[in-house]
């Protein structure tokens, strides 16, 4: 047991320590030029205590930082009564999320990754303002409680991205990869980037009305973030979720099966335990359109008389990390792939949209399933892309519009946007409201 917990044990009834030490390197290119190298060496800790049945929290740089325990104890003097205990001893699932090769990466190795992307793309797209970045991180997370939990994880992550705005436009194409092991850009990804970039040379605005819409993996958050808000045990508890009392009912198309899979192999966000030291497990959230489960942390689970699902994470829509309060969140959301090629889905559309991003999502009433965003992506006519979307918004409600899904691709990609890293296929929604010409 960490000395801080030993000390806390003498002062309070229960204590929980979260301590993360990380070392990261990031290299960034702008306009095909190396712009900056960043290297961070950071330690951060949080402490929760329960004293006389009340909870208090404190955050600091090191567990031994002066005032750390005192601040948590002071918080507990005023805190609300809690009806749960901190996590106890548990067996955690085995998860291999450490690569020694990644841990040994240096800035010169990351520069090499960026140079290989630069060399290939500069030949084909010499005049675009290409940004490239590569990063690596090694971290060690420890969660210990006076109740016996002792969770530790040594993990690594490596990633790269590249992208450029369309000439004269505010939006563009971005591609990325990440994993536990060192990452190298493969030719197929670079070719896809070039194809998409060239699709955007022309702009196109669809007519106002209802049109079929393909959500690319990069835009899966438009459906998944409202779903996350809906399946949060907290929203069910507070009765703000539109899914309250709907367990076992059809909420989405039967073509959609969605897992929360914290044990997703090779994923940099994969976790064997959550930020409360509770073991994580793969769970079906939506199975063939039927709502199967809500997500709980310990606080909300206790309020709903159900155990934590191992989904207590220090995450919010706009960030994550030590100072973030714990609440029920996805760790690695995954949408099960279908059996169609996404290229064939595009070919089958008379007029529709391929969406790669949606701007302004957070301004909408997404906890109720709604979204209204500026559409970023491509306009499809007669099975072919005719240009990048311009002056176009799409809006809808996932619990109405995603009941009718026409196709799910077999190809999957990493989710991005507001979501933690998971995987998603291309999903063709029968129709969404489009505001265009």
């Amino acid at each position, binding site marked *: 047991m960490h000395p801080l917990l030993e000390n806390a044990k003498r002062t309070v009834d229960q204590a929980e320590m979260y301590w993360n030490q990380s070392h990261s390197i990031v290299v960034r290119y*702008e*306009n095909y*030029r*190396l*712009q*900056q*190298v*960043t*290297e*961070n*060496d*950071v*330690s951060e800790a949080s402490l929760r205590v329960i004293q006389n049945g009340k909870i*208090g*929290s*404190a*955050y*600091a*740089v*090191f567990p031994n*930082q002066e*005032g750390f325990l005192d*601040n948590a104890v002071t*918080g*507990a003097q005023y*805190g*609300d009564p809690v009806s749960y205990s901190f996590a106890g001893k548990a067996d955690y699932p085995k998860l291999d999320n450490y690569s020694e090769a990644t841990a040994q990466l240096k*800035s*010169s190795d990351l520069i090499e990754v960026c140079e290989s992307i630069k060399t290939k793309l500069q030949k084909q797209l010499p005049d675009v*303002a290409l*940004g490239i970045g590569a990063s690596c991180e090694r971290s060690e997370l420890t969660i210990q409680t006076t109740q016996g939990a002792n969770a530790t994880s040594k993990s690594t992550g490596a990633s790269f991205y590249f992208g450029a*705005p369309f000439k*004269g*436009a*505010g*939006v563009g194409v971005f591609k990325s990869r990440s994993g536990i092991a060192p990452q190298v850009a493969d030719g197929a990804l670079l070719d896809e980037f070039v194809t998409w970039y060239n699709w955007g040379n022309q702009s196109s605005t669809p007519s*106002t009305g209802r049109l079929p819409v393909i959500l690319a993996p990069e835009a899966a958050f438009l459906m998944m973030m409202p779903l996350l808000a809906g399946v949060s045990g*907290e929203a069910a508890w*507070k*009765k*703000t979720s*539109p899914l309250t009392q709907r367990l076992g009912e059809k909420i989405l198309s039967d073509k959609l099966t969605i897992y929360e899979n914290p044990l997703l192999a090779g994923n940099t966000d994969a976790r064997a335990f959550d930020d409360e030291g509770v073991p994580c497990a793969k769970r079906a959230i939506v199975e063939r359109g039927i709502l199967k489960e809500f997500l709980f942390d310990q*606080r909300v689970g206790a309020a709903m008389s159900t155990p934590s699902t191992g989904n207590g994470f220090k995450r919010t829509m*706009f960030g994550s990390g030590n*100072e973030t*309060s714990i609440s029920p969140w996805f760790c690695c959301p995954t949408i099960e792939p279908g059996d169609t090629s996404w290229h064939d889905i595009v070919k089958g559309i008379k007029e529709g949209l391929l969406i790669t991003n949606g*701007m*302004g999502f957070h*301004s*909408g*009433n997404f*906890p109720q399933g709604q979204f209204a*965003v*500026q559409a*970023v992506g491509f306009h499809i006519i007669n099975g072919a892309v005719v240009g990048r979307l311009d*002056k176009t*918004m799409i*809006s809808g409600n996932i619990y109405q519009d995603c009941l009718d899904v026409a196709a799910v691709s077999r190809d999957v990609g990493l989710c991005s946007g507001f979501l933690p890293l998971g995987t998603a296929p291309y999903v063709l929604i029968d129709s969404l*409201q489009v*505001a265009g010409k």
Partner: protein
Amino acid sequence: MKSTFANIVSSLPADYADLRFEENRKIRIGYEGKELTEVATTLTSGGHVRVYAHGGKAISSFSDPGKAGPIADATCTSAILVGNSRDKKLRVASAPVITEDFLITPVRDPRTVSLKEKLDLTAHYNDIILQNPHVITTQTMYDEFTSRRIFVNSDGSIIEYELINVGVFGMIVTKKGSVVQRVRFAFGGNTDFSPLLGREEDVRKQITKAVELLDAEPAKAGIFPVVLDPSESGVFIHEAFGHLSEADGLQNNPSFRAKLQLGITLGKPILNVTDDATLPGLPGSYEIDDEGVRGMRTPLITRGVLSGRMHSRETAAEFGEPLSGNMRAVDVQCTPIVRMSNILIEAGDSTFDDMVRSIDNGYYLVGAKGGQTSGDQFTFGAQWGYRIVNGQLGNMVRDINMSGELFSTLQATSMIGDDVRFGERGGCGKGGGGPMQMNRKSGKGSPHIKIDAVTIGGI
């Protein structure tokens, strides 16, 4: 500690180097419904070093001040690596050497207020909201951030300065049948604790709107003329124009850099836009930025013409334009990036009634609800709105997001009111090539404005 850090940066074989060391304290008290979810104190400290060498740049953050020397050396080595690979060298504009402290003395210093008083105040506002029968839950937060920072650079500047930001904000959630609506409230947002007191009527006004929204109609999709209230137009000018005036976003974007040459006409002569860190008592007011440059007033659009830009020392050198003192970092893990201080649309001479009367079929949109921008494309939401039919305000509408393109929308800004108001609570998220930095200290002000055409996403 100041002299140790000063010796570290001045001894590097660098073109320029600086180091910022911070000791930060945050207090967060949170209610969700009846539940007090958090009474938490955060103490963080650490440093951030930036080195320009051989025309390259490298940065590092660290937690342990004892490691500052070796980390600065390693950062310098990385900067040389970057510089040796660059044909176009990075450099910083010269800036005045400052050896002065900038400490804050608020009217009522939140650091001297007891935790108990802060907790009682938060509970008081939360209780007022919970008394309404349509309210199903709340989020009521007390948020206090205080930072003591040391800044040293290789030019010889040695500065100690403080930042304070304190506020109460939250969300009122109402429900009727299957309709759930959310309305925000916020007050405070600067260095003083006093404005947090006696705000019951402001909270009740927002509760009324959250209840009225339960019977509002969803907005219709399409292109419409709109009148924006000051909080909406403040977000509009921040998102649509302000971010494109931050030079670090333009630095490596040749097409927008060409489009945004100083002297080009962006709007009608009625349009004047300014960034001003010197206005007292606003969220984005400060004496000194995180690059050791004084905060100042920078005219951005003057009579419709692009007249200035927000800069770092690096971008000021590259663009050959004056320093503006806009480099800020939210904490030690972040490098400073170019941020708006208090951006505002200056007052015009139209009245709100004139604007409404001029519209046959459109919307009056009220209450900032956040936004997003990418290049010249922007999107932002409204908390509620009203139809405008034949020059008259009509039914209330809900679930409103709108989008547009900067250049055409500035040209379509056809009327500017005489009633400038600033939002009390600041806020802005920006990555700037690194992790997202959520900046409390970013103010937005504007009068009512009329825009002839924006795209509204709705049913």
